[in-house]
């Protein structure tokens, strides 16, 4: 036997469909079995390779040279298949084309640039919680009343969207995140409204639709300075609208779910509201609102002894990496005493979520406002998941609260 093949490791095979309803509903058992099976697992159902351990997922995320995004970060391989929409200039692009859009957006969404929003968002969060408590109803759906409402109140304003049609944002995001998976029933369910939702979102990206002081206007100003082309500007605005709404809504829902099921941790946050930032990152580690993304091998890549052939699709299980016992002690526990730094819920490396500081600021604002005003939060009924091929999302989160004295 030639030496090269003698040293190559054949990866274990799983016949599971990670996009089947049972796994989307309860991903942990599949994540556990994939981590246990090996550092690389072949998924026979889609003829792709899976990474589920933190070390390999982290390494693949940062190695853009070997694991490209430009052939799509879903199951579809753009080298052979036509994308369902013009590809994202950020998420679905590689250097050098990725550089200019990333550089422009990074500066617009960097922590120093967000300082001006902090106070506005704190006030918005306090007003939202006060209004909710003023209704006198101590049982409500925290997904609708908090997780969904708050980002939809502050983020479109920050982008500079007009008042009309904002109800299209979540359905558009749901569709876009389903599209990273296979063409299953979840994708089919949205087929009738792809054209309408896309047309609305695309129309909002035009300069004249945006207010003059938001993120969107800054993107257009960058195009006026020649840092982007005027053809690129609307697609960069589209990235904000696709990636910035559903993700934070379900991230906030993850945090509320975590606290509703861990009253001791809620007390901890009540005692030290400055833990809100750590709490949000721990919640998105624990729930991983973005469960998976694909990459494509640019060459034959060896991962832990397994050769992944060029042009293969690689499915990275962010949620599994975030609960890898080789990286985290007691990984299934939601624990504000833990340092969640190093989780991969925002990705890592060149494509790491450019809006992560926006998400953290939204979460910090809302969690701090709640911690000051709410003494107890607990589940009032069984929460319901909403199934999506990529997002760990919610349909309802019924809670019962007791206001602080």
């Amino acid at each position: 036997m030639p030496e090269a093949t003698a040293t190559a490791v054949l990866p274990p095979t799983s016949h599971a469909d990670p996009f089947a309803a049972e796994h989307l509903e309860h991903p942990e058992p599949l994540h556990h079995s994939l981590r246990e099976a090996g550092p690389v697992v072949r998924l026979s159902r889609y003829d792709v390779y899976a990474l589920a351990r933190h070390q390999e997922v982290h390494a693949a995320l940062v190695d853009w040279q070997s694991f490209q995004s430009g052939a799509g970060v879903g199951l579809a391989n753009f080298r052979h298949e036509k994308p369902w929409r013009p590809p994202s200039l950020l998420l679905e692009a590689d250097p050098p084309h990725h550089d200019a859009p990333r550089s422009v957006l990074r500066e617009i969404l960097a922590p120093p640039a967000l300082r001006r929003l902090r106070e506005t968002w704190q006030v918005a969060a306090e007003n939202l919680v006060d209004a909710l408590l003023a209704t006198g109803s101590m049982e409500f759906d925290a997904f609708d009343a908090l997780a969904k409402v708050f980002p939809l109140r502050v983020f479109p304003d920050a982008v500079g969207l007009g008042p009309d049609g904002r109800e299209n944002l979540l359905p558009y995001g749901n569709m876009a995140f389903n599209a990273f998976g296979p063409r299953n029933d979840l994708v089919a369910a949205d087929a009738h409204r792809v054209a309408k939702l896309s047309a609305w979102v695309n129309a909002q990206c035009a300069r004249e639709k945006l207010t003059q002081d938001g993120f969107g206007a800054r993107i257009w100003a960058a195009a006026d300075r020649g840092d982007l082309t005027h053809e690129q500007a609307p697609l960069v605005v589209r990235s904000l609208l696709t990636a910035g709404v559903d993700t934070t809504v379900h991230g906030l829902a993850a945090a509320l779910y975590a606290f509703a099921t861990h009253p001791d941790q809620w007390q901890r946050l009540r005692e030290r509201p400055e833990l809100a930032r750590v709490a949000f990152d721990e919640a998105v580690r624990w729930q991983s609102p973005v469960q998976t993304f694909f990459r494509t091998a640019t060459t034959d890549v060896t991962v832990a002894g397994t050769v992944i052939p060029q042009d293969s699709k690689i499915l990275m299980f962010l949620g599994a990496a975030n609960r890898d016992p080789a990286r985290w002690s007691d990984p299934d526990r939601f624990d504000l005493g833990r340092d969640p730094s190093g989780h991969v819920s925002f990705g890592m490396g060149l494509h790491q979520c450019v809006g992560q500081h926006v998400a953290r600021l939204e979460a910090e604002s809302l969690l701090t406002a709640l911690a000051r005003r709410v003494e107890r939060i607990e589940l009032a009924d069984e929460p319901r998941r909403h199934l999506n091929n990529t997002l760990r999302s919610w349909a309802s989160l019924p809670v019962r609260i007791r206001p602080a004295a």
Partner: protein
Amino acid sequence: MVVQNLLPTAPRYSTSTVTLEVRSKDVVADGVVSLTLAHADGTRLPDWTPGSHIDLVLPNGATRQYSLCGDRWDPYSYRVAVLREPAGRGGSAYVHDTLTPGARVGVGGPRNHFPLAPADRYLFIAGGIGVTPLLPMIRQAELMGADWQLLYGGRTRTSMAFRDELTAAHGDRVTVAPQDECGLLDLGAWLSEPAAGTKVYCCGPGPLLAAVEDACAAWPPYSLRTERFTAAAHTEPVLRTPFEVELRRSGRTVTVSPDVSVLDALRQAGADLLSSCEQGTCGTCLTPVVAGTPDHRDSVLADHEREANDCMLPCVSRSRSGRLVLDL
């Protein structure tokens, strides 16, 4: 709280992020050496884009900025080229005369003030060692399928680094014009006609930049992009000794030894500080500074934000003053 949750297998960058090893030192032209820098343990370096520079913190305490001129597809090494500047403050002389392969140097960044913006066509103008940031830009222009030309001036042919590689690889896209053979660059001939869709990228000595700015006065706004390094305003040297960090709100003080990052020292003191990339690129650990002067080594903050000294990224940045006070 946190330290016990970090198992030994967890990827840690710590201060190795900011200390690199000189792997090779080569003479590439009269008075110019190139340095190849890498992690001692061969791990990945932070990503960069054409036009980026790094801060090189030399063993003698001097900090100098050099453009990255290597290949960004190689994640394991950085390459810079250093011109000996007899009138300089001693940084380049140290690199030329004292620095040897195997030496450790501090590194800040990469940061990019000179990014390559999209264009149909580029005119690159280099003066002497100013060719360095343009090398990766030229490769980028090729990859993007853009049209480009390089006008490369220098004192003498043998002082012009990379001239043979450039002409061999790109033929008549490259015009090499040594001053002792051709006189000053004929900017009028190259720039008299503003060209729509063309961006002009120029790096070189001050008089060249001024002449190019004049020659481009009639060009559409934002057509011309230049790189001008300014000497760092800091008077305090980089500390190579332990320093103290006070956590203002919690009232604790921690001593940071040279081989530990500020972030790790803060965590050991019990601060609840989030981080993510731990390479100074994502901005997650941004922390307000109340007093003291940070030694900024990150890729996130803009110059005016660094100079304000009111925040820092403790995953890579350190201190120039004996005491830093943080709002933690």
